[in-house]
């Protein structure tokens, strides 16, 4: 799985969050390449480039200007060449409604943005080392929301 660098894409409009995200990836010991987009529109443009290299995991914030994370999720799942993209929802919200909606729309995992940097590192580590094939086949409402043991 970790043949070269793991390619990560984060779609988040918040500069601070992008900073935390980048620092967390810098701190963990896995070879990664992290790219950022600032809103939903930019995300879709990026993904729809003809020569795009699709990320291994897309971290998707829900509350974004221009196009929300949920809209992007629906669009991605409708687009044939993007359909198999692994999507981790990365949001401040932990409302049942948001979790339920994104689960139904086909997101792979749901991460609530933590308020502690160490927790963030642990969560990210958990996500990128996850066996996606195994996780996706056994996915249900209970293990959709990622929580640290």
């Amino acid at each position, binding site marked *: 799985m970790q043949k070269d660098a793991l390619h990560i894409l984060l779609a988040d409009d*918040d500069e*601070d*969050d992008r900073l*935390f995200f980048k*620092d967390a990836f810098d701190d963990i010991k896995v070879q990664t390449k992290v790219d950022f987009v600032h809103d939903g529109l930019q995300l879709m443009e990026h993904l729809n480039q003809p020569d795009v290299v699709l990320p291994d995991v897309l971290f998707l914030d829900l509350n974004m200007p221009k196009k929300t994370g949920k809209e992007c999720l629906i669009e991605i799942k409708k687009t044939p060449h993007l359909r198999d993209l692994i999507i981790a929802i990365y949001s*401040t*919200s932990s*409302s*049942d*409604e948001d979790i339920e909606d994104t689960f139904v729309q086909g997101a792979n995992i749901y991460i609530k*943005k*933590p*308020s*502690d*940097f*160490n927790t*963030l590192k642990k969560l990210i580590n958990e996500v990128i080392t996850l066996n996606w094939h195994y996780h996706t086949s056994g996915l249900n409402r209970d293990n959709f929301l990622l929580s640290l043991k």
Partner: protein
Amino acid sequence: MRRIFNFNSSNLLRVIFVIAVFILLFISSISYKHNRDTHESSQLLLHTFEINIELERLISSIKDAEIGQNGYIITHNERYLTPYEFSRDKVNRSFVELNKLTAERKGQQKNLKQLFLLINKRYQCLEEALKYSNSDSYNKEKLENALQRGRVLMANIRAQVDNMKEREKQFLQERQANYDNEISLTPLFTVSVFLVALILIILSYRQISKDIERLKITNKKLLISTKLMDEAEMIGNFSTWQWDLQQDKIHYSDNQFRLLGFSPDAFVPERGTFLNFVHPDDKETLVNSMQTIKEQKKLPLIYYRIVRQDGSIRHFKSIGKLLVENEENAHIILGISFDVTDEYEQNIELSQRNKELEISNQELASFNHVASHDLQEPLRKIQTFISRFSEDDKKAISVRGREYFEKIDASSKRMRVLIDDLLLFSRTNTTKKEVVKANLNDLFQNAKTELNEVITEKKAEINSEKLPKLNVIPYQIEQLFINLIGNSLKYSLDNLAPIIHIGCVKVLSKNYPDVLNQNVKKYYKITFQDNGMGFDPQFKHSIFVLFKRLHSKNDYPGTGIGLAICKKIVDNHNGFITADSNPGEGAVFTVFLPE
């Protein structure tokens, strides 16, 4: 009931009246007969008397003839023969008279015939005597013989007349006896019949006066009821009307005129009159309703508007029903019209307010949700930044700066708890409430698992009686258990391991009339009893109020939202929650949930 009674009374009167009339007819016929009998009897007496006189006259005529004959025989003076010759005529006249008088007397006619024969013979004797006394043909022996026979015949005649008189007397006596018999009965009978009639008349008089008395009372009641109705119509803003479908006559109550903006009886209502007052847009409805009245003989509830003379618009509601006194002949529609303008306007205002309230409620809920949501964002960042402060960074600042930093950390943590609780509270309100049948024992176990860490730390003992299966919103009831048990754990005594007992009994709502909805009969009463520090009973109500805390947040961490959430959850389940305690004696939280 009363109607039936009156009907009987008038029938009774009719019967009494008919009987009385018959009795009077009977009495008058009896007295008529009585009169006629009296008349007949006197007639009869007179008749007998006449017969007797005539008989006496007959005798006396014969005697005259006899005396005349005797005189002639002695004197041979022709003068004495005159009475004799007259007497023959007299006898004949008397005889004719007697024949007439005794025409209806059977035995007497026969007697009369015999008398006639005797008298004839007597006259033959007289003739013979005259003949043999004459000087030409004098014959002493034959004369004596004739005179002798004449005396015997005379005695026979007398006997016959006496016989006839006797017969007549007998006849009279018979009749008299008969008659006496008849009239001896009559007076008693008449008087008794008269008395009966009198009693009947008195009875009917009593009945009539009773009826009149009752009629008076009923009339008075009716008068009062009419007045009351009039008052009620004015106060209640409604009116009544009658429509006689057969005669096509319409009658309005006084208030009907008033409701239309007129004084009572200001005009004579006709079928079309009412339409003149109806709002142009509602005329069609009214016309259809009138058609319904005529065809189906009823008026279902209708709403319409009226335009009064002064141009003001009033909202009306009318309903009508057929007056059924007897099945075949029901043709009067009784109707009620209400002026519902005030209610209508109030309703409009109320629904307007309701709408506003709903909107403001929605705004409030979404504000609560969004605010706590959006507040999370900067807070999360503050906390993340704090977490990025390394020990080296902390050493680099002054001791006071480090102290401030710790306080910033504590405050941000507290803010986190507040926002989380606030979110939870708003979610209890806004999220969809899916009611399913759930086993409360399972929910209790889940809650215990959730609180496992604190329970172990405090060495708490939690036991529960068997809990029921109920139709609830499961995650909310679980939250309720967590909050209540968590509350007991938090306010435990320092030197005493917490013991929490959860009891459950089924109770009847009528035993708790002040707090439970009486429409639901049975409730489950679930009690959470602890041995903690308890609280002053004066706070038993306020502890359920949002942000209300009994302790300083430095002593006991908390937001003052937990018990407010409990109350909200119990309210969502149409239940009731109370708290009872005394300081130092532990607390009991009681939750009532409908069965």
